[in-house]
């Protein structure tokens, strides 16, 4: 019986494993091999060059600039997402009337593709916002913010947050709703104020969700591509060029396919390390069910 159960479990997980291997493991291995060659992505010459692509990456100023942008963008996204999602989730948790309506409203952006959201906001920033800016007499908002070297960063972060909050608010809301109500009541009776209730009771319960949100948001930030592609294509003057955009440009616009693969592998390693660190650190604080 045991043996048969094990076989069933194995067979049930087989399709997922096969798909995962074909669409993730195999391309990753191939990408690693390309990163050790000097292929331009078009011709058939693929000569082995060892780790020279990786060495060049470390001295490439474009890589450094895009890494700097990507890290700043990710941090802004993380701070914005965590603070705003939890705040909105707490607010939604305390609403009795029309909770369903608000939940739907906040979730709407999640059903749109990132590229669609980018294109919509591109039009809003190019045409609608300047008109509003002129109306209120603001000089910086009177022209397209996506063309301003300083404001484009914030426009891109804003658009990502607008969409990114949707799923995360829902995740936090369901985590909050799973906290045993009697614990909160008891704390209230013992004289705890709202701040203490949040930090001492609610937060430890939502740490597993916080983990997921941090990992997913950090991943979205570090791999940002479609919304930036739709909004600014990395401009103006490369000030919003993310690592994802640079990988695309190297591979498909500048015909440096192997160099692009090396950068992609490097980012994979960085994200992997960050994820491990984050999981280990937060293990201490979560409430185990």
């Amino acid at each position, binding site marked *: 019986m045991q043996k*048969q159960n094990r*076989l*069933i479990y194995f*067979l*049930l997980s*087989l*399709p997922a494993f096969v798909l995962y291997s074909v669409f993730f493991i195999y391309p990753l291995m191939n990408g690693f091999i390309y990163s050790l060659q000097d292929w*331009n*992505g*078009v*011709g*058939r*010459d693929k000569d082995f060059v060892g780790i020279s692509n990786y060495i060049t990456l470390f001295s490439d100023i474009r890589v450094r600039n895009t890494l700097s942008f990507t890290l700043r963008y990710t941090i802004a996204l993380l701070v914005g997402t965590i603070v705003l999602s939890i705040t909105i989730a707490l607010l939604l948790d305390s609403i009795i009337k029309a909770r369903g309506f608000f939940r739907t409203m906040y979730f709407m952006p999640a059903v749109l593709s990132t590229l669609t959201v980018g294109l919509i906001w591109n039009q809003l920033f*190019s045409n609608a916002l*300047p008109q509003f800016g002129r109306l209120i007499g603001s000089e910086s908002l009177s*022209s*397209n913010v*996506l*063309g301003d*070297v300083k404001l484009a960063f914030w426009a891109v972060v804003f658009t990502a947050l607008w969409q990114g909050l949707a799923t995360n608010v829902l995740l936090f809301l369901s985590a909050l709703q799973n906290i045993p109500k009697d614990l909160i009541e008891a704390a209230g009776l013992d004289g705890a104020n709202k701040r203490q209730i949040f930090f001492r009771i609610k937060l430890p319960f939502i740490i597993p969700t916080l983990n997921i949100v941090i990992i997913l948001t950090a991943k979205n930030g570090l791999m940002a591509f479609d919304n930036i592609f739709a909004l*600014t*294509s*990395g*401009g*103006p*003057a*490369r000030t919003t060029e993310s690592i994802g955009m640079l990988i695309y*440009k190297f591979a*498909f*616009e*500048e*015909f*440096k396919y192997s160099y692009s693969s090396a950068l992609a592998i490097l980012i994979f390693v960085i994200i992997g390390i960050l994820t491990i660190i984050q999981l280990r650190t937060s293990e201490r604080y979560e409430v185990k069910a």
Partner: protein
Amino acid sequence: MKLKKISLFQVIILILSVCLTACGGNSSDAKRQDSDETASQNKESKATTDVVEIEFFNQKSEIVDFINDLIVDFESENPGIKVTQTQVPDAKTVLNSRIASGDVPDVVGCYPDEAEFQAMVSGDTFADLTGDAVLENVDSSFLEDIKIDGKDYNVPLTLNSWGIYYNKTQFKALGLEVPTTWDDFIDVCETIKATGITPLATSLKEGWTTGHIGEAVALSIAGADGACDFFADPSVKFEDSVYYGEFINRLDTFADYSKPDASSTSYADAAGEFARGEALMMPQGIWTLPMFQQAGMTDEIGMFPLPNDEGKGVIQFGVDLAVSISADTPHLEEAKAFAAFLASPKAAQYLADKEGSPSTITGVTTDVPETEGVTSLLFETGRNEKWYHFSWEPGIDGEWGNEVASYFVLRDAKLLAQTLNGLFEKN
């Protein structure tokens, strides 16, 4: 939680059905845009089973319908051959991936001037067509520049070129003449600006448009040989070139006479500005004309070459539509027959009438008065040059365009020179 007991038998059935659905769909169906009506018409007339099927991979979405019409004609003249046209978004990337994986379409629409094409040829992707009957209708003067190692690897069919569109109707109303020298051009811009209208509709955001502007400006200052060296001579850095100062001045002119947010304006939006009369000139290629017509522009349109100091502007051009044949195709004769058909005067004239691009086929005339100011120079000696980016390494033209676009934002001439020195290996 108690798990419901599942029998081994049920699990195996589940897995088999998942695998069958995964294998069932033909993945290439999603990519092919079949000429369905023609397929069903032809099926009735063909009773035989030895019909040869070939694939034509078309990179130009604007001509899909015209090619389908030509395929109908070709198949009626050649009942033993069926042609399927493939046209997908992001065609260039799809084609590169297919070639890299060895799945080369039988007939490929390509851009033979571009460096990537040369890279593909070096990988023995395309068949050698030197001296083949397929080229007999092509004007031989257009074959010279696109030979690789002295051999012909494709059949050039149409040409494109670049210049300045202008709103003829509004020019007449303002009493403006077509400028021939650079100073005249500035005067025209000033006059238009004084009326409150933007002189130039430009997309300084998109690298490919700014790259064209940069190359055209370099040519207008330095002339043919000077411009070539401006880019290619490794011994003279950009900032040390005699032309660099004026190059920056003329780039500034384009920016100063465009809308203030031209650096965040897309190509489509810039075309809209010109079509609506919000700007009276637009530096672009002849390929943009259909966009003005689709936007419902009623004012008359004309074109002139970017002026230079001599008063005889030189245009830049390239081969627009060309077809190559896969070196490994199992249907070489049929593929050649299709290519020869496309290069026949009848088919080429049809394409010229419908699409408007100048043709490389002898005896074919194109009647598009809007772009005549530029296309007529294709046949005038000394008034046309191939784009310089054709002779650069693959990928450099993309970066070049992005660096010029960055200049329009940052206006840092020193930084531009520094970056270009690195890009063109002048360090």
